[in-house]
């Protein structure tokens, strides 16, 4: 990359902002803001409370490439006004009332609505979304359905030995990344939480830790590791089983398992047993291959077995900053983590039945609301093709692939920059993401939009708003 001059042309600094990209939720970002008036307290040029009204972020400190790119968004593609698709198939700008009324009408009149997304918005928004879902009997689902859904199923099969990331930072002397390329998908994970930071019991940081990457590809993370275990594609299940067998004192019958010589497996298991504190981070490499949740089952069992010898924990590498938040939110509100179907007047959760992809491939939904997510970019076309048959309501901040399939577009605002809200880090630590600048005038907060939809649907259905609510 070419050298870039440091940014000096800014008026205000906002500190301790939280990154709204991946599940690391780094909360040490510093935004450099240009223009606007401070609504709150200012010390020198640091905004100590409140936000900058009318300013815009010109620089971000501490963020990784991903975080910086998201905060320093592409304004060309920012959705600014509500739009409705006309008969010609073109999105036409309209006013908020028209767009919200149309959307509410679609939702109120639908038989099998699906509200998908939520992982890039706040818990506060979800509250209204859930109330709306309960009211109309919708299916509420989030991105876990296409990323760590199998992990959650494995957790339901096998258990959930986790920790907060600080435990890893302060204690871990062995770090395992499996089926995950943290350097690309969670770039600050190694730097801030796992490998490089100097922890209380690991004063020398990187030098006190052994890093292992298990991945069929020699990824950027593997390149930074001490050990790379390049098992075969779709070989994860066999490989972990072999590790478990060795751990339990069994002799391996084959010389090479999933492309890994058995001596290497034995050596690896031995060093994992010897670790004082081990941390295993697993990603979509395990959930997206053929054995899906069974891969994670066996990884969790491996960790449980390792605890007889030493201390091991794991953490799923959650992708979006609040994907864990939605699972936690749904669990405490209605008992199930994702793919919750309210069609029968009570929550129902059946994997493979009440999940978005399965619903779409079965062509069940008749209205699809996507909020803070991008099925156009991330669903297999076999699922997306049904979105071409039904009305799609989109609440998002950028014109993306889903906008190409959307019939009603409601421009939201950017959580952690333009709006505050609660999120849960991949390890379940809640963080209140604060507002740093004001949103574009014509946009609305996600919270407001979903609440408006709720109110309008309640009006159509003739139901009084719930008092004191939840």
């Amino acid at each position, binding site marked *: 990359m070419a050298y870039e001059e440091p940014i000096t042309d800014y008026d205000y600094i906002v500190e301790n902002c939280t990154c709204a990209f991946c599940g690391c939720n780094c909360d040490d970002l510093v935004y450099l803001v240009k223009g606007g008036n401070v609504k709150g307290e200012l010390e020198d040029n640091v905004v100590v409370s409140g936000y900058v009204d009318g300013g815009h972020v010109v620089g971000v400190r501490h963020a990784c490439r991903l975080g910086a790119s998201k905060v320093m968004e*592409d304004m060309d593609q920012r959705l600014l006004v509500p739009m409705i698709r006309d008969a010609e198939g073109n999105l036409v700008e309209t006013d908020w009332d028209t767009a919200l009324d149309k959307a509410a009408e679609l939702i109120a009149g639908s038989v099998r609505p699906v509200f998908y997304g939520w992982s890039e918005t706040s818990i506060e928004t979800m509250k209204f979304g859930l109330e709306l879902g309960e009211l109309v009997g919708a299916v509420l689902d989030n991105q876990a359905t296409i990323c760590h859904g199998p992990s959650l199923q494995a957790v339901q099969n096998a258990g959930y030995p986790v920790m907060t990331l600080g435990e890893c930072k302060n204690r871990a002397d062995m770090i395992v990344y499996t089926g995950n390329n943290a350097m690309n998908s969670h770039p600050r994970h190694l730097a801030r939480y796992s490998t490089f930071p100097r922890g209380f019991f690991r004063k020398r940081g990187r030098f006190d830790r052994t890093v292992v990457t298990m991945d069929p*590809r020699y990824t950027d993370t593997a390149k930074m590791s001490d050990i790379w275990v390049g098992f075969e594609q779709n070989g994860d299940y066999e490989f972990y089983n072999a590790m478990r067998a060795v751990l339990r004192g069994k002799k391996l019958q084959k010389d090479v398992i999933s492309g890994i010589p058995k001596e290497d497996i034995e050596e690896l298991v031995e060093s994992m047993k010897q670790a004082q504190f081990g941390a295993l981070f697993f990603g979509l490499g395990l959930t997206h291959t053929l054995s*899906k949740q069974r891969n994670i089952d066996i990884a969790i069992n491996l960790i449980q077995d390792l605890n007889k010898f030493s201390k091991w924990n794991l953490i799923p590498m959650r992708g979006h900053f609040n994907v864990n938040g939605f699972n936690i939110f749904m669990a405490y509100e209605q008992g199930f983590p994702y793919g919750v179907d309210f069609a029968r007047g009570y929550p129902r959760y059946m994997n493979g039945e009440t999940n978005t*992809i399965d619903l779409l491939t079965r062509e069940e939904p008749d209205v699809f609301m996507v909020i803070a997510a991008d099925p156009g970019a991330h669903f297999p*076309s*076999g699922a997306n093709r049904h979105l071409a048959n039904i009305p799609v309501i989109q609440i998002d901040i950028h014109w*993306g692939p889903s906008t190409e399939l959307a019939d009603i577009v409601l421009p939201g605002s950017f959580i952690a920059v333009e709006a505050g809200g609660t999120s849960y880090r991949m390890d379940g630590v809640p963080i209140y993401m604060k507002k740093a600048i004001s949103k574009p005038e014509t946009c609305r907060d996600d919270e407001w939009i979903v609440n408006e939809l709720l109110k309008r649907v309640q009006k159509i259905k003739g139901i009084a708003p719930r008092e004191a609510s939840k």
Partner: protein
Amino acid sequence: MTYVDKPPVPNVVKFDEPNAKKRNKLEVMLNTGSDIYQGACKKRGSTLKDEYRHASGTAYMDPRDMARLGVKNWDKAIVKTAWGEVVVFVAHSRDAPHEGQIFICKGPWANVIVSPETYCCCDPTYKGVPASIEKTDEEPLLMADLMAEVYQKYKKAEDDSNKLGKKPDNNIDWY
């Protein structure tokens, strides 16, 4: 700034591979996932731009496979699976060697060819899908064009080109 024209990739060097026989079509294993350029471009919101087409609509290949197929960086290829076909760029994978595997970042391009089969566990099979790759002269489509072409939500009825083909049967036999 995080804007790039296209992701930086290593140059393809010629391999003196005695077994490397030039072929027109390779049978490979398709992997999808994210990388940092795709992630940055997508979440910044630059999905309509040429950058996204390069970041996301690129099949990263092992250089030996590239030699066999006779392609160099940023040539074009068509990838076919049981679920569909899509034209993408090819480039030298930063994660090589991984002979017999191609990696396409998640995005509208990869979506056309991955399997929506969840085996009743909610998650489609994004990784480890059998695929074939051939060289082509066609140009990979920009995001908006691709979405219009593939899903045809707002296309007139007379246009009946369909990239997705028949909806596959659930009882697939290729495993």
